């Protein structure tokens, strides 16, 4: 059940916070605030990139949307800042030996805001609703076939194949519990009906602008330290930066390194550098269906080592990140620091590889997304042209990039993706059905490693994860360039603890600073 080792990148911040929070998970009752004993504060204002498309828990999403859903819905299991799992609505969970059942013991003192009781039947109703609602995180419960009510406080989730990440998924969208009386109704789409620490004040909220949440006075656990939380929806980066530097919001995350430099210059606080993403080239076409030359691993390696990763970090990301060659992050078992330099910049060797592969006249199309700084594309294209590759540009319109990539329309693309858990990475990037393996690349050796993973014990899983990482690097399925820093900024009135593998802190990780 162990999820990940404590991320080195978060380091001291997390360690201190964990020491102070003591037992945030033990039944979900934070004993003290992360900053010590700073008591409560009237209001926390978060500048958010996104707003929920629906309050139906089955339509919840992760990442930037996590804190807003966590405010109103509790998950079955809680994920601590370092990734460890702890009790929340479920007090204990046990996976069967064959990995095809997960038994959950539930709290018996929780009611939803409409008065309905939280019990095993409620869990069953939520699981069944989640499976049919076609929400964005449906994959969280893809292996779950159903829920069996043992008694009021015990439920068993049955699986058709083992899913080592299931407990973790129950701390994500797959674990949000809504009132069974409201599930599937239009009411719950418009206003949440959960058991979370806050309730939505619909009269003071404006879709597309502001969501105000006030305390759930009937909350079963210890109250969070803020009396009210306001999410200001600020999708525009300039607006978010201005709101942050003028003190209108207590917290905001920024996407662009240039904005982060401005926020830093304005004296806004930020945690020690950490990263939740990796950025680089995805070689979708490893079998050469669209670009025959890419079937040759030497061509992929040539393109990978032709990129001057450190220069790209410095120029394209203001130096705010680390060069890497791995899709696995430092907080996973698969990660091996020595592999960060596996694709060290070597244009001469790249030219030799192309020649050996008979691809010295390679011509390739690089699709350009408006989301990323043009200088990133310019630098990569320059690097590739330096080894004799002809690069054509294809400009994607707004909103086109991800659908186009996931339809497999281009053999390669530059993208920033989350660094996930070991198993999640295989399901997200590597397996033939993975959404980020659109041309269904597969290899018997890799498939065998992925197949072995779920049944292995903890040490075995760690070993397999490392082997998968090495295999992926040796076969150059990707050309990761960097782990860009995640830009979390906060004002003087609060303190935050970053959440591993999440772009923004969970709602539980915000505390008043006492100022």
């Amino acid at each position, binding site marked *: 059940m162990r999820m990940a080792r404590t991320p080195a990148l978060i380091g001291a911040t997390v360690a201190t916070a964990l020491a102070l929070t003591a037992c945030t998970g033990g039944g979900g009752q934070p004993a003290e605030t992360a900053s010590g004993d700073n008591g409560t504060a009237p209001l926390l204002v978060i500048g958010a990139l996104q*707003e929920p*498309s*629906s*309050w139906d828990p089955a339509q919840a*999403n*992760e990442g930037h949307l996590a804190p807003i859903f966590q405010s109103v819905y509790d998950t079955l299991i809680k994920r601590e800042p370092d990734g460890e799992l702890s009790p929340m609505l479920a007090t204990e969970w046990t996976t069967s030996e064959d990995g095809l059942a997960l038994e959950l013991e539930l709290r018996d003192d929780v009611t939803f805001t409409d008065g309905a009781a939280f019990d095993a039947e409620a869990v069953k109703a939520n699981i069944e609703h989640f499976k049919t609602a*076609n*929400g*964005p*995180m*449906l*994959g969280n419960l*893809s292996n779950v076939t159903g829920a069996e009510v043992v008694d009021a406080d015990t439920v068993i989730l049955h699986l058709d194949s083992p899913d080592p990440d299931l407990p973790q998924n129950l701390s994500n969208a797959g674990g949000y519990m809504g009132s069974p009386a409201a599930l599937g109704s*239009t009411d719950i*789409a*418009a206003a949440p009906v959960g058991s979370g620490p806050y309730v939505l004040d619909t009269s003071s909220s*404006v*879709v*597309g*602008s*502001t969501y105000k949440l006030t305390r759930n006075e009937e909350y079963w656990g210890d109250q969070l330290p803020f009396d009210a939380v306001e999410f*200001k*929806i*600020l*999708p*525009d980066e*300039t*607006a978010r930066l*201005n*709101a942050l*530097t*003028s*003190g*209108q919001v207590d917290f905001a995350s920024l996407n662009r390194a240039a904005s982060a430099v401005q926020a830093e210059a*304005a004296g806004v606080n930020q945690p020690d550098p950490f990263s939740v993403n990796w950025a680089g080239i995805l070689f979708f076409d490893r079998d050469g269906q669209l670009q025959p030359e890419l079937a040759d691993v030497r061509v992929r390696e040539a393109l990978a080592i032709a990129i001057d990763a450190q220069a790209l970090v410095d120029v394209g990301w203001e130096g705010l990140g680390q060069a890497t060659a791995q899709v696995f992050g430092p907080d996973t078992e698969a990660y091996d620091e020595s592999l960060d330099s596996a694709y060290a910049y070597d244009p001469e060797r790249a030219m030799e590889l192309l020649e050996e592969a008979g691809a010295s006249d390679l011509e390739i199309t690089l699709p350009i997304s408006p989301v990323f700084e043009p200088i990133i594309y310019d630098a990569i294209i320059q690097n590739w042209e330096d080894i004799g590759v002809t690069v054509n540009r294809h400009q994607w*319109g*707004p*909103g*086109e990039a*991800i*659908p*186009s990539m*996931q*339809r497999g329309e281009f053999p390669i693309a530059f993208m920033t*993706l989350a660094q996930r858990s070991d198993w999640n990475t295989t399901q*997200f990037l590597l397996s033939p*059905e993975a*959404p*980020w393996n659109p041309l269904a690349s597969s290899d018997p050796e890799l498939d065998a490693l992925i197949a072995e993973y779920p049944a292995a014990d903890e040490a075995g899983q760690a070993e397999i994860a490392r082997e998968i990482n090495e295999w992926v690097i040796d076969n150059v399925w990707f050309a990761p360039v960097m782990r860009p820093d995640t830009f979390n900024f906060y004002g003087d009135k609060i303190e935050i603890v970053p959440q591993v593998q999440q772009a923004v802190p969970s709602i539980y990780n915000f505390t008043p600073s006492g100022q």
Partner: protein
Amino acid sequence: MPFLLKRLFSAVSLVLATSLIVFLLLSPAFDDIARNVLGENASADQVEQLNAQLGLDRPVFVQYFDWLAGALTGDLGQSLFTSQTVWQAISVRMPVTVALVVLVTLLSGFFGFAFGVLSAVKRGWVDRTIQFFTTLGDALPAFIIALFLVTVFAIQLGWFPATGYTAFETDPAAWARSLVLPVTALTVVAIAGIAQQVRSSMISTLRQDYVRTLRSRGLSETRVVLSHALRNASTTGLTALAVQVVGILGGAVVIEQIFALPGLGSLAVQASVLGDVPLVLGAVLAYVVIVVVVNLLVDLAVAWLNPKVRLS
């Protein structure tokens, strides 16, 4: 009455034409909508299922006529990305954009006419100074002015909020404070165009024979300028104002983004980027209504000021 009927007919034609054009322009992106709704974690099966659920797998014209049939009965549909109906989204956001546009129109109209008349009457250094600043205002895009205003008056001085909007009924003072910077940014640009038009129109009007006659009859200069010359010259100024209003609506799209104002502009941008077709069509409809109403008001004002227009 025939005048109003004609206007109504042209407005309906405009709505039909623009809605069809917008629908066709957005149609290549229909394949991406389900993927964007579901996000990057969803499987191909999920995308296919949602496409069918949203009816996006039907031919484009079938989808358009389906929308049109609903629109004719007052049902503009449901946003694909939020839990709101299109009517709800527009009704929440319309007051923000209308407040912005009305305030900018009134202020730019007042100052544009004032500066134009002052330039034409005083000439000399007053004219040159006003010309310099109006040319400068014309040359600077509204978003540059907006960024300057935010940096100085919101971030450094903290006099006004950098982002956000407070409804008038919630707190009139906060409402005014939330609009000062965006209104100023748009007004500075709009004044420039109006002042230039009013100035040249006033100069040519003041040279006409009837003005000389009025002066020779001993009327005060103020009366000659404000009661007679301005009335004639205002037709050009009002027409310029009507053109500026359309420009203000366009500028408001960017300004609403910068100031995070929940208006129609930011709605239109977000909905367009995501491919939220029902919302884009709703926003376009709302814009057409605003433009038609403004043009109608200007036409009525011109007709009131100038009897010759009434006769034609």
